[in-house]
Every structure is written in structure tokens, then in C-alpha cells.
């Protein structure tokens, strides 16, 4: 390559990078590589109505939607495997698109081909410059789940008191704790705490349905909402105990936790001193 064509090549490259700087983003999940340019076409077909042409969550439908569509320009995401305040992994975003968001207008897009979903992830990452300057956080590690025992459930119930989960979620986990009515998300829109007792065997959380998902939700926190991260204050095995207790709040859902509780007589022996008064759930 002579000097002239070399320079020409560089100029073309420069021009291209100025013209479409935002589309240089890629995304990777397993063997899949997302292409933002393809993702843009898909976005304009499937996502633009709610998330808007600018990705700021102000699409045509947004005014009639509660909770509001995600604002991708803020790069704050609810469902992450990464610590609070960090960017999610490509896998996290890919999972969110496929899973949809329970109790919201975001449907599950698992009918789309895998390649389409990863292309969408690549395009979503073009809306905030954070993706160019920051790396995704390191996913939290989740130790293997110990056996479900009454001891584990009881200790989980104690943690539920000690961590004051009931302040928002209520003593029975119905989402009616004393602080529930005042909660707003980071855009000042009212938001309800999760009601564990609603729903039966089809119960899901916004960020998944498995015990591992429950573990991940309270350790990473749900960014952009009042739900904080408990990563610094709950030890790994204690966290599993809390998961086991939370499952018993889903009273109409069949689970090993509810089986163990039922076999033990259906009552959790909570120390009287730990049971505070003043919960809206009582």
C-alpha cells in the first residue's frame, strides 16, 4: 500500500468514525456477536414505540405506561449480575430482553432469534457514552445453595427483621410496609415494592424466577429504584437463608421452602424482641 492510498484509507476510516461514532458498539454473549447497525433496524421496529428514537424512554406510548420505559441514555439498569453503580454485562441485557419485565409493559422477546436480541443489546449500548469509557462490573459470585431447612428459614426471617426489609415490603411481604407509599424511582415516579404474596406457581420477580435470581436481586440491588444493594452487609450463607425465607412469603406458590415450613407446622419461631411494631403489613 503506498502512502497515498494509506492516507486515503485513514481518512475514510476517520470519516466513518465521525459519521457513525455511536454504532461502533458491539455486544458478546457466548458465540454471538451483536451488531449495532442491525440492532438499530430491529430497535426501530420493536422498541421505538416505548423507548423512543433517542433511547431516552420517551417513546410515543411512554405517557400511558407505568412503570416508565427504561431510559438507555442514563445507562442505569435494574437487572444486573454486577454490583450497584456498575454497568451490567451484555449477558444481563440479553437476558432482560428475552425475559421481559414482569408487572410492566415490557414483554418477553424470546420469540426473536438469538442474533436479533444480541444485535439489540449492541444498539442499546450506543445510547450512553458510559459504554465507551467504563467496563461492565464484575459479576457477583453466588455460592452453591445449601439445603432448605427450618434453621435456614428461621435465620432468614431474623435477617428480614434485622435488615428491615419489612419497612418497604411489609411483615408479610405484601409490599405494604410503612415506607411503601412514599417510594419513588430515580425519576421521581411512584414505585411499589414487590408483593411476594401475590401470584401462585407462576410468580416471577422482575429480574428472574429462580432462587439464584432472588439472591442476585438483593445483593446487587435494583438500580434506579429504592431497592438498595445488600452486598456489604449480608454474608453469602446468610443470603441463602434470606432467599429461603423470602420463598415462604410466596404463600400460594409451591416450593421446597413452603414444604419444609409446612412439615414443621407452618410457623416460623421468630424471637419476640425481633418483631417490631408499626408495620403496615400487620
Amino acid at each position, binding site marked *: 500500500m503506498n502512502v497515498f492510498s494509506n492516507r486515503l484509507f485513514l481518512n475514510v476510516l476517520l470519516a466513518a468514525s465521525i459519521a457513525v461514532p455511536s454504532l461502533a458498539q458491539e455486544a458478546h454473549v457466548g458465540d454471538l456477536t451483536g451488531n449495532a447497525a442491525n440492532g438499530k433496524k430491529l430497535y426501530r421496529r420493536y422498541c421505538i414505540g416505548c423507548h423512543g428514537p433517542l433511547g431516552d424512554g420517551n417513546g410515543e406510548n411512554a405517557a400511558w405506561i407505568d412503570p416508565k420505559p427504561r431510559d438507555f441514555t442514563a445507562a442505569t439498569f435494574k437487572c444486573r449480575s454486577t454490583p450497584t453503580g456498575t454497568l451490567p454485562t451484555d449477558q444481563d441485557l440479553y437476558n432482560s430482553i428475552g425475559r421481559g419485565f414482569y408487572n410492566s409493559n415490557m414483554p418477553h422477546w424470546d420469540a426473536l432469534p438469538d442474533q436479533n436480541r444480541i444485535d439489540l443489546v449492541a444498539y442499546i449500548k450506543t445510547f450512553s457514552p458510559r459504554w465507551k469509557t467504563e467496563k461492565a462490573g464484575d459479576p457477583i459470585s453466588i455460592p452453591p445453595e445449601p439445603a432448605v431447612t427450618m434453621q435456614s428459614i428461621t435465620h432468614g426471617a431474623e435477617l428480614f427483621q434485622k435488615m428491615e426489609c419489612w*419497612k418497604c415490603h411489609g411483615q408479610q411481604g405484601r409490599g405494604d410496609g410503612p*415506607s411503601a407509599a412514599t417510594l419513588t424511582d430515580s425519576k421521581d415516579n411512584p414505585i411499589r415494592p414487590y408483593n411476594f404474596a401475590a401470584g401462585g406457581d407462576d410468580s416471577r420477580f422482575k429480574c428472574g424466577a429462580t432462587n439464584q435470581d432472588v439472591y442476585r436481586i438483593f445483593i446487587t440491588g435494583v*438500580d434506579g429504584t429504592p*431497592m*438498595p*444493594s445488600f*452486598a456489604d452487609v449480608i454474608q453469602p450463607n446468610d443470603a441463602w437463608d434470606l432467599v429461603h425465607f423470602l420463598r415462604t412469603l410466596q404463600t400460594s406458590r409451591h416450593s421446597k421452602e413452603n414444604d419444609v415450613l409446612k412439615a414443621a407446622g407452618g410457623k416460623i419461631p421468630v424471637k419476640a424482641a425481633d418483631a417490631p411494631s408499626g408495620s403496615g403489613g400487620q
Partner: protein
Amino acid sequence: MRTKQLFLVASALMVSPALLFGAGTISGKVTYTGTPAKQKTIDMSKEPTCAKQHTTPVTTETVVAGPNNVLENVVVYISAGADDASAPSQAVTFTQKGCQYIPHVLAMHIGQELKVVNDDQTSHNIHPLAKVNREWNKSQPPGTPPLSEKFDKEEFIPVKCNVHPWMHGYFAVLKTTHYSISGENGGFSLPNLPPGKYTVTAWQEDYGTQTQDVTLTGNETKTVDFSFKAKPY
């Protein structure tokens, strides 16, 4: 050689070298005109462990005014002209006590360690609603050790506790160590400034920012006052 010795002497005395060549001070007062909005009384009855710590009614602190129209909690800082010093090694501390933030406005340098302490018998969640920095949200139950955090970029960040919705505060993340927060008499002081041209900015959480240019020629003290127009509601 001479300069080096001077510098060594200065370092040994823990004095900024600027002092040797003359260091000025910018000081003044922050006031308001008009009538500030009446602050709301906070009802803490849902959190008895906090309510019992207060003998007098607690109010919101969006605007803290004193006698003679002075304004407290205004961050006054050098926004241009001073070297961007590196972050001080000692941490700044933000304490949750009686379900209030102490101080209500906490200034810090970019990258400086921020310690968040929970002195209460209740769980708080510390939720800085950052837009330029990263937004995070952490739970801090009673008896847990202080959280250690830092912010990378200049920003005034509102901080709230979602469990206790009346708790509001601010982190002022600055790229200078030359800052002062107006006290009970509305006064502020920015000492140890070498001769030069400076832009002084005053920030109040409800009233926004004001700037003034100041030139220091030696070790004089220049008076700069700020006056904000109060919002009636």
C-alpha cells in the same frame, strides 16, 4: 538551590509554598433577598428511635436561613484559576443521625474517600441520585461498619434515603480543595490562594449558582458577597 531549600523548609513546616510568596484570602457572606419558602416540619413518628432524639421539631433543610437574611449550607468554591489539586488523603464523613444527614451538604474532592456512617438504630439506604457519576444505592443496617466510596466526576449529587423519605442531602464533588460552606452567620472563607485571577462560584441547592471574578495580587483578603433571590415556594 535557594528555591529548593525554601521549599524544603516550607514542607517541613507543613505550610503551603504559596504562603511564602504571598497567599491571599477570599471571604464574604451569603445572603438572600425576598422571602424564602417556609421549611416543612418533618414527622418522624414512623421511626420512633429517630423521633425521640429530637426535642425540638425538625424541619426540611432545603433553605437554611439565619438572622439578617444570611444563608447557610451554600457551597462557595474556586471554579477556575486554582490548580486542580489531587484528592486529600483524609476522608470526609457523612453521618446519618436522628434520621438526618450531618452535614446536610458535604463537599469533597474528586477521588477523595467518602465515609458514610450510620449512627442510628434503624436501617438506612444511601442513594446518591448521580447523573454524571454512577448512581448507586446501598443498605446500611444499624451497627454495620462505615461505607467507603468515592466519586470520579464533578457534580452536585442529591442524596436520599428511600426508607425515610424526608432524608435529603447533597454531595458537592469538586475538582478543587478551595471550598467553604457558609455557616450560621452566612460567612465563608477561602484562604491560601496565591496571587492570580479566580472565578468564585456559590451554589445553593434550591437557588442554583452564582459566580464572581476576583483578582488577588498578594496576601490581601478580598471580600466577595453573594446574594440569592429567594423563591417564595
